[in-house]
């Protein structure tokens, strides 16, 4: 009895492995935990340093002495070679005045024809006693009678004036007035509204956002008469301040969601925000994840569609890419065209896209696992032709696939960098010649070329560029899993991926919804796109304040 029990006690290797079983995941957990906490400590430190810099600001008030002030301004602007000063005398009264503006940023016409003209030649002497105080012009008189400019601010300090002038306003200094006027003359060059390059559609509006925030918000406003569209302005960037606008539908978007977006945006703490990608990375839920948790788009129609579903858009000045939160995996695989075309093609294209996703990240992994591990799971005739074509390839399937995959990735990267006329030529050289030659030389097999080509094409059909990147990375992980464990590795990889997806959230919304948890009512617009007649409600998962769309 005792003996038989002893016989069942595994040997020391099993015990050693059992320790590994616990230690390795614990170590991984600890590592990630450490990364997270390290990051938090870091951000805490930077907060402190910022507060100290702010305290050093000096206050320089205008004195009211024209020459002295002008000198001070000149001194302040000495570092900015593009700032121009123009001194002149007002009308007939001979008061000295000066305007300060930035060449190229301010509207030349406006300055010449309205500001200068109204001050110099059109200036009418007004009844003396009423508008003059101590021999000076009154502020109100200039504002109300002379300047025909729609937006005029006043500044009392040089520090107030400088940023405005540097963004295109014109400062007007008049002898005897302590305040200076800041005339809104900014006229930065902005791109026309063009078709978005990264999200082309056959059918649908041709308009895309440009780099100008005002144009972009105007595009949203112009979309239709809709008083519930709220645009809330923030400024981000500690050193270089930029405008950022949160757009949402007042009576649709969930209040909690809007508050959460605002909270996260206020927390952004960096000196400058060059692109909305920065914002995305600061507000996303899990930055260790491969999956994009914020949608970006250049299309106003897509933004409006999202707002109508109760989501929130974030527009940043200086970039055509607008962020939309929250986002789910399925949303990233939809295009506006799904709705513009009739529902049957819409549905079919959508299914096709899901299939393409599957192919784009699992096809090479499946190839490797079948070739290297499970020759018994491929059809006999196919097996014969694979053996025939692979006969002279000296590498194992994983190396073979890596060679080709990495070449394709390099090709893609190179194609992006190349000037447009060279691009297609490059594609031909890379794709055709290298592919063909590699097969001829026996480095890769023909079947693999087909697999990789299909994979690459499939990955192009993912409508969201960032998600495409995700799957490009995942493809490699999948290939490694397949190289170690074959089909079993692929299954585990898939399970791991799903585990990650179900844990992931975007602004509180489960990333995998509406697939899971099951929400049958949202499935009308998930893998299939039901006729619009049947989509009477907004997505339930968004917890909108007004769930009914129609009827």
């Amino acid at each position, binding site marked *: 009895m005792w003996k038989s029990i002893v016989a*069942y*006690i*595994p040997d020391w290797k*099993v*015990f050693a*492995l*059992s*320790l*590994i*079983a*616990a230690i*390795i*995941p*614990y170590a991984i*957990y600890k590592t990630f935990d450490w990364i997270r906490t390290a990051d938090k400590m870091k951000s805490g430190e930077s907060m402190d340093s910022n507060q100290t810099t702010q305290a050093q600001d000096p206050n320089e008030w205008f004195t009211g002495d024209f020459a002295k002030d002008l000198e001070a301004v000149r001194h302040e602007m000495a570092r900015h070679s593009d700032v121009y000063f123009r001194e002149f005398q007002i009308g007939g009264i001979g008061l000295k005045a000066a305007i300060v503006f930035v060449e190229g940023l301010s509207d030349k016409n406006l300055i010449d024809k309205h500001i200068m003209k109204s001050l110099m030649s059109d200036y009418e002497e007004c009844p003396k006693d009423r508008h003059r105080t101590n021999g000076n012009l009154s502020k109100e008189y200039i504002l109300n009678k002379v300047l025909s400019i729609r937006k005029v601010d006043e500044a009392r300090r040089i520090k107030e004036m400088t940023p405005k002038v540097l963004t295109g306003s014109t400062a007007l200094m008049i002898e005897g007035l302590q305040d200076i006027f800041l005339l809104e003359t900014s006229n930065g060059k902005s791109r026309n509204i063009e078709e978005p390059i990264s999200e082309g559609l056959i059918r649908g509006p041709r308009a895309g956002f440009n780099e100008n925030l005002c144009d972009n918000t105007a595009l949203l406003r112009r979309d239709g008469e809709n008083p519930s569209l709220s645009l809330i302005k923030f400024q981000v960037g500690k050193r270089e301040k930029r405008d950022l606008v949160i757009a949402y539908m007042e009576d649709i978007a*969930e209040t*909690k*969601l809007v508050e*959460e977006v605002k909270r996260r945006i206020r927390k952004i703490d960096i000196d400058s925000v060059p692109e909305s990608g920065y914002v995305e990375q600061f507000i996303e839920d899990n930055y260790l994840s491969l999956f994009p948790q914020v949608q970006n788009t250049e299309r106003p129609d897509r933004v409006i569609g999202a707002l109508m579903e109760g989501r929130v858009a974030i527009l940043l000045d200086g970039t055509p890419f607008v962020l939309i939160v*929250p986002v789910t995996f399925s949303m990233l695989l939809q295009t506006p065209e799904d709705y513009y075309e009739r529902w049957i093609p819409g549905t079919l294209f959508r299914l096709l896209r899901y299939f393409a996703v599957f192919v784009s990240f699992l096809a090479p992994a499946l190839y490797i696992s079948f070739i290297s*591990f*499970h020759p*018994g*799971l*491929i*059809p*006999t*005739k*196919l097996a014969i032709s694979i053996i025939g074509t692979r006969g002279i390839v000296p590498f194992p399937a994983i190396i073979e696939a890596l060679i080709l995959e990495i070449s394709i990735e390099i090709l893609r990267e190179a194609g992006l960098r190349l000037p447009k006329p060279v691009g297609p030529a490059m594609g031909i050289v890379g794709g055709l010649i290298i592919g063909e030659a590699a097969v001829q030389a026996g480095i890769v097999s023909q079947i693999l070329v087909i697999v990789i080509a299909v994979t690459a094409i499939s990955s192009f059909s993912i409508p969201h560029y960032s998600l495409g990147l995700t799957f490009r990375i995942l493809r490699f992980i999948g290939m490694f899993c397949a190289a170690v*464990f*074959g*089909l*079993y*590795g692929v*299954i*585990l990889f898939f*399970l*791991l991926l*799903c*585990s*990650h*997806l*179900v*844990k992931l*959230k975007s*602004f*509180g*919304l*489960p990333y*995998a919804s509406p*697939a*899971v*948890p*099951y929400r049958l009512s949202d499935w009308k617009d998930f893998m299939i796109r039901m006729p619009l007649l049947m989509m009477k409600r907004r997505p339930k998962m*968004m*917890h909108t304040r007004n769930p009914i769309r129609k009827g």
Partner: protein
Amino acid sequence: MISTPKDRITTPQSAVILINYVLGTGILTLPRTAAQAVKTPDVWISVIIGGLLAMLAGIIMAKLSERYPEKTFYQYSRDIIGKWCGGFISLLIICYFFMASAFQVRSMTAVTDFFLLEGTPSSAIILCFMWVSLFVTVGGINPIARLFEIIFPITIIIFIVIASLSLRIFEVDHLRPVLGLGIMPVLKGVKATTLAFAGPEIMLLLLAFMKHPNKGVKVVVVGIGVTIVFYLVTIILVIGALSIEGVQAITWPTIDLMRSFEIEGLLFERFESLLLTIWIMQMFASYTITFYGAALGLAQLFNKNIHPFLYGLLPIIFIVSMIPKNVNDLFKFGDFIGNSAIYLFGGLPLLFLIISGLKERKA
């Protein structure tokens, strides 16, 4: 929309968890174990009876748990029979859960090793499997439920595909006569088939997490009902194709069913890869939930955070899973777990239900 403080799962999620837990080893071995016990083509009747018995046990357990909302069995067993007895029973159930998970991971390895990865050390297969499962379990019951909801439709779709493909070698004569030798052989098989439905015990824990705990009975009925259909289809197809005599002599009959035909021109030609895929996923689900059940039990028993127990259980499960030396030991191990399930969950919950009913009346 911002996540709720306490994890809650919906009613469909609970049903899916139950289904995924029950479907497991059974898909591959049930046809053989049942056929060996019954020896006539009436195996499918035994499956129905076994399923109904399991459903009954599940309903009792759901009813019991319903009396103690928001509490798992580990917590309320103390209220019913006192701290020490309750703790002891809980410990037994915890043992059951982690033994079951060790069995599942080991039988998964046995099949994978035989059909997919000959030559790979089973420790490597087991370790990776356990780690992936750990990754989802640390997230709590909600990610588990959602992951199962992904696995479930994949299983159903692939199962329907391969089941309809295997119809081409189906011969109805293999399933006849119905009750040719009377009801006795059928009854002999009931124990074997009931074991395949082991799984409703998860209701003892699951109800505490449900948004609507009063729908526990519904979950059991739907969950076991779906598994009955699954097993019924499997067993009918396997016996219809391989005959009752053939099935008894095959270690993994369902895989052999898939290997018994090739369909040229249908892209794959061979379909056991699909079956193995869904089966590994199902084993993953079964393993995950038993693993979680065991760790949850320990955590609640000692009133601590679940995470250290999740990590701490891994080596134990690994060692237990390595104990069976050969396939015979493995099957014996499975029988042992099945038998303990009958003792633990066949009678005990009913007893508890009666005791708690009496207590309530007194109070």
